[in-house]
């Protein structure tokens, strides 16, 4: 049973995939298989995009390998397309889990013409209006006050939506984090603040980030409950998110949920030498051994739902094929035309931007090479 401020993270599955004593699982076999597929998509998305990066076809990648259970648990615990998400830049797993098409995500990561965000941000900053996934920002924690405000608006409008606000452990050191959580708290706003505690903010370990014994304990300071789950247990994360969002739909105020997980890969391609510079191979190996996908597979096997090698290989092939097709479409669509650089700054084009646009257009028409 989910309790606030527990000593140990809540889990349904032990690390070896066996059911915890007294725990029960409500997912059907088909739902368990979907969770496994979703997590596998996130894992393979990482693999394929890193390959694209190495081929020079994209410029940045921040992998979520090791965090699949947290992100898919969140995605499957909310009402996708109904609840709103203010995520952070590593949340492609959540985006995939709530149904943002692979083609949209790949288009964003390639700055392609088919990107609904129109190639405006560096790779790994998705956003999808139709799925209510707000385009992510690079600035750490600055999605937290807007999430509080959105939840206040939901309460004002009398909807049964909730806002999900995710962030890493490093974000909890920022002023915006405290301002936003406090704002939601005093306004009883239905915002689920979720820390995807992967234990490293680039190269800074969580114990250099805070003297608090945990992240969820910080909720005490704001007068809201703090929950703690094993972020490598997708069933526990899904159940916690579902339970907490139901509470909020019934009129409950904000809560803080800490998912304890681990980023197995580097922060991004910029620190691909993580094991040489800031963390030990033993630490990474230890967490690789707690693989969230393997944990679910073991549980499924215990329920007679074993994923065979052939089935796994077929699934991986299917996912790679989807991504390959998305990459092909994105690359074929080309990159957005220079003209759109001036659009979406404001609702309409103000006179000074019109002037700058006209100058650039004249240069382009005169056949000058670009603007450099």
């Amino acid at each position, binding site marked *: 049973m989910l309790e606030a401020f527990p000593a140990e993270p809540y889990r349904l599955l032990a690390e070896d995939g066996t059911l915890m004593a007294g725990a029960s699982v409500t997912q059907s076999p088909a739902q368990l298989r979907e969770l496994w597929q979703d997590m596998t998509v996130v894992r393979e998305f990482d693999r394929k995009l890193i390959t694209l990066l190495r081929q020079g076809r994209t410029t940045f990648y921040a992998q979520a390998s090791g965090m699949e259970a947290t992100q898919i648990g969140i995605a499957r615990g909310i009402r996708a397309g109904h609840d709103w998400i203010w995520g952070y830049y590593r949340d492609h797993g959540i985006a995939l889990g709530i149904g943002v098409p692979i083609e949209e995500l790949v288009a964003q990561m390639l700055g392609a013409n088919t990107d609904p965000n129109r190639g405006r941000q560096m790779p790994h900053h998705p956003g999808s209006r139709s799925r209510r996934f707000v*385009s992510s920002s690079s600035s750490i924690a600055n999605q937290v006050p807007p999430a*509080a405000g959105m939840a206040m608006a939901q309460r004002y409008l009398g909807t049964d939506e909730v806002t999900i606000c995710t962030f890493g452990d490093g974000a909890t050191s920022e002023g915006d984090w405290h301002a936003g959580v406090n704002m939601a708290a005093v306004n009883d706003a239905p915002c689920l603040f979720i820390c995807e505690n992967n234990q490293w903010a680039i190269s800074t370990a969580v114990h250099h980030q805070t003297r608090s014994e945990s992240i969820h304990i910080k909720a005490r300071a704001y007068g809201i409950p703090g929950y703690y789950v094993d972020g490598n247990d997708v069933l526990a994360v899904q159940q916690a998110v579902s339970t907490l969002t139901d509470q909020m739909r019934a009129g409950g105020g904000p809560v803080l949920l800490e998912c304890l997980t681990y980023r197995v890969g580097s922060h991004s391609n910029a620190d691909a030498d993580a094991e040489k510079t800031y963390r030990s191979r033993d630490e990474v190996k230890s967490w690789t051994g707690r693989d969230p996908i393997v944990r679910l597979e073991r549980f499924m096997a215990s329920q007679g739902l074993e994923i065979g090698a052939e089935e796994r290989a077929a699934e991986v092939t299917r996912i790679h094929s989807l991504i390959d097709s998305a990459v092909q479409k994105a690359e074929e669509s080309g990159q957005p035309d220079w003209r759109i650089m001036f659009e979406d700054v404001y609702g309409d084009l103000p006179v000074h931007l019109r002037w700058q646009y006209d100058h650039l257009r004249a240069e382009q028409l005169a056949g000058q090479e670009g603007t450099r």
Partner: protein
Amino acid sequence: MTATQEPGVRQQPSSSAATGVTMTLIQAVTEAIRGELASDERVVVFGEDVGARGGVFLATAGLQAEFGSKRVFDTPLSEAAIVGAAVGMAVRGLRPIAEIQFADYIGPGFDQLASQAAKLRYRSGGQFTCPLVIRTPSGGGVKGGHHHSQSPEAYYCHTPGLKVVMPSTPYDAAGLLRAASRGDDPVMFFEPKRLYRAAKGEVPTEDYVVELGKAAIRQEGSDISLIGYGGVMPDVLKAAEALAGEGVSAEVIDLRSLVPWDRDTVLTSVAKTGRAVLVSESPRIGNFMGEVASVVQEEVFDSLLAPVIQVAGFDTPYPYVQDRIYLPGPTRIVRAAVKALTY
């Protein structure tokens, strides 16, 4: 919406006297907010002390009693939370009008303005928008020292995606605020605090807006263009009066909004007079008038009879004791005009 102010049209305070009421600039602000609250349930008003107290300058006085604490409410003392919450509310479909108690204190909310409010439409390819207004008292002349007197509007002008407005009359304060509230973009609405009660004028009782990006010609003239905005405008008009006493015909332009700003009215005026004095009270380096000067010399260089001259605040933190020396008063404006006229 009626009686939209035409670009560059001479605006006389008495022109709307038939159906107008005399009020101060801050009363006009209050009336505009009241009207927006009454006509649009999406409008919510919040900030530090704006509720029962009605704001430290009383801009929202009485509104909580009239519209309830769901529509008008106090927030924690956190500019980041105020601005950030406004962003989230706007994305979800409300029309927040948030108050920051003094422009000098927006710092903790700057990232919310620059990284969220200003960028969300652009970075999402237009999927998400941020229609919000941040109102804040700004500028000097109230013996407030540097943390209660600065004119930081240039920081925001330098952030594409934000609109920046600063009225100098009650008529404009109400009309611009309504336009800001009804627009689809985030607007920084700076209110010159020394004019809150010093500026009085006729304000129509009917609904009207003043379109953002249109300057007002306060006085027509042929010898020199005096261009300003916000708190300096009464002093610019005094300078024009002094110059008239010397037989100089000055054209006085109030920019009213800085992003977007009314290039046509400014360039037409300077092309006509051949001389321009640009007046603002913010520190000179990097202030908004630097952009006006740049565009003037780039676009109407051949019409210029003298260099464009700036009268600005000094590049010091805003001082307490030397308050009146720091601000560009009529004497400095006249001196600059004479320099241009005798070049």
